[in-house]
């Protein structure tokens, strides 16, 4: 069916999903951590909005709940925590430029195409208009993973991880109108705990290697295990 034939709500959903995808790109490209956090918050907001709109479209209470959870968690709580960490670690000005921006974005684009190709068979027997959102969400997940691969900042990696979570949420919302409540809660709880732990780790890493550059976390590489001693334990 053509886009025009869709009800307004669905059109809005598609638009928001597209913006979510764009936010994923932005997150990937954004080198300044502070800005990246903001982008991440926006992405969360978009996902929450999608959930809410679909709830409105389908009248499924479940979706409102997940929208609320997302809003609370991804838009408010986690960005706030990241902010605090940023300040405590004095990283506000910290930038984490990509090694090969052009290449990365190219790869990202390729991944989007791939995601669409993979999701096509999955989507094609779903009859709701929002089926292609599945492809988008898959793309967001993969882009999050890509971000974790290309970013050297631990904090950026966490953002990538959270972005993947967003993608998952998007998928759940778009394809299945949300998971059962208990699962939603469980996932949210896990994400929250994970975030707390991340915070703990930032501090630990910071005072162990005095930076958050994950590439410097490589003394366990087996080649070292082969030849030299690890430094004596305190």
């Amino acid at each position, binding site marked *: 069916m053509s886009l025009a034939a869709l009800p307004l709500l669905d059109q809005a959903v598609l638009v928001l999903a597209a913006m979510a995808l764009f936010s994923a790109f932005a997150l990937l490209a954004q080198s300044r951590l502070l800005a990246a956090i903001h982008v991440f918050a926006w992405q969360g907001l978009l996902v929450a909005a999608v959930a809410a709109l679909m709830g409105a479209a389908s009248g499924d209470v479940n979706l409102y709940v997940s929208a609320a959870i997302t809003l609370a968690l991804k838009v408010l709580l986690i960005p706030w925590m990241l902010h605090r960490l940023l300040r405590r670690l004095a990283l506000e000005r910290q930038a984490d430029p990509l090694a090969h921006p052009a290449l990365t974005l190219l790869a990202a684009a390729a991944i989007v195409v791939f995601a669409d190709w*993979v*999701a096509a*068979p*999955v989507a094609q*027997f*779903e009859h709701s208009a929002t089926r292609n959102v*599945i492809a988008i969400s*898959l793309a967001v*997940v993969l882009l999050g*993973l890509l971000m*974790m691969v290309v970013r050297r900042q*631990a904090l950026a*990696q966490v953002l990538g*991880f959270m972005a*993947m*979570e967003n*993608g*998952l949420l998007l*998928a*759940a919302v778009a*394809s*299945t109108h949300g*998971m*059962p409540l*208990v*699962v939603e809660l*469980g*996932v949210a*709880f*896990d994400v929250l*705990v*994970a975030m707390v*732990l*991340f915070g*703990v*780790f930032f501090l*630990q*890493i910071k005072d*162990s*290697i005095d930076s958050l550059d*994950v590439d410097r*976390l*490589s*003394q*366990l590489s*087996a080649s070292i*295990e*082969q030849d030299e*001693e*690890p*430094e004596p*334990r*305190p």
Partner: protein
Amino acid sequence: MMWIVLAVFTPLLGVPLLALLPRARVAGWVNLGLSALSLAGALGLAAQVLMHGTLAAHGFRVDAFNVYLVVLTAFVGLTTAVFSRPYMHYVHAEEKRVGARGMRLYHSMYQGFLFTMLLALTTDNLGILWVAVEGATLATVLLVSLYRTPAAIEAAWKYFILCGVGIAQALFGTVALYFAAQHVLPAGANGLSWSTLYAIAPQLEPRVMVVAFVFLLVGYGTKVGLVPLHSWLPDAHSEGPTPMSAVLSGLLLNVALYAVVRMKMLTDAALASSATPGLAGHLLMGFGLLTFLTAVISLHRRRDIKRLFSYSSIEHMGLMSFGFGVGGPLATFAALLHMLVHALTKSSIFVTVGHATHIARTQRIERIRGLIRTQPAVGWGLLLGVAAIAGFPPFGIFTSEFLLLAATMQAWPWLTPLLVLGLVVACAGLFRSAQPMVFGAAPPGQYPVRANMLPVALHLALVLLLGIAIPAALAHWLDQATRLITGSGLL
């Protein structure tokens, strides 16, 4: 039902309790007691299932497949607790590597880990399963970095990130599964209940199931330690406290594999009528073989004793995945048995390794020498453990490998040479490291430590028993599980 509660939620009770308990010495005992309670519950549960068959209620499902894993988990949890009490006391009081807060964290998280494991095994809801497995990561990740050394922190970070990512992929798979289910199920039905899904599996949309399975495989496979997703495993094993390594190898990997197999069952059923019926099995086989071969090579020229044995865990996980992938009653039976014996053997080995590292005061293999002179019990424990893990009869691992080879010889004869080659390389790698540690003259200034070899003796005795004669009840369970997974049994 009460048995389930006793088995699963006793540890949950332990989490806050031990977190608040100030006295480390007492905490050790409490930890032990709770594990014992949980084991009692598990045994009761087992008896119940043995008598009344599959038990599914209140979102739990305990059938032949997971009941023996529940017992195993509770058992290993207990024996490891027995070991960890003196061990952690030594670390805390003698070595001063962990403070009082650390000890509280340790004991509380130990129970938390057990809880997640048991929950993951007993739940019927795939979503909860996911939550539990993720919870297991969260519970253990802080324990890996318990010693706060840079290496430990690094290991924990890798563990955290990689497993987090993997588990996220698994969630996507779960969502896809749910998505597929929703198109078959009437509204309101719980599309994540495994029982429900299994009932309607043949109608699930193959194309969706394939994608879902890939995500689930990669996701849970990361936790199983399938190559090339295994990188976190040696680090986490080698840097965490030894009891953690024992339960990680003995339990976590098993539970992850359990999840994968459950998903495979659904996928197989869904793909039965499609163009590629054996796809899930083939993927699993491929992963298993790759894992196995990579791991056996990595067993050579190791310097860190715990890394050595973590690679051996990877190797055996590969074998099990291969076995489940081959499918068919014989291979599946072998893989199920292998899960059991490997868990027992490997945890006993890690217990011994813990003592060995205390004797030699290092994890560097070339500095551990002449254990059999310094402390014969530890030396023999290590030697026999290694012999068992290398697949020498009359230990049980030989039995499962024997069956696995036989099954492969029937189904994929041309793959057997690879397996055999791998087993030989593994044996060589293990013994070329283990033999010098056990035999030879002891270096000066190496003294025996207070070691509790009871868990080791117990585990090895069980493995020996399984190698000589499998008890009827267990055989029955395994056979039921085989029926469940492959549709046909052996007995």
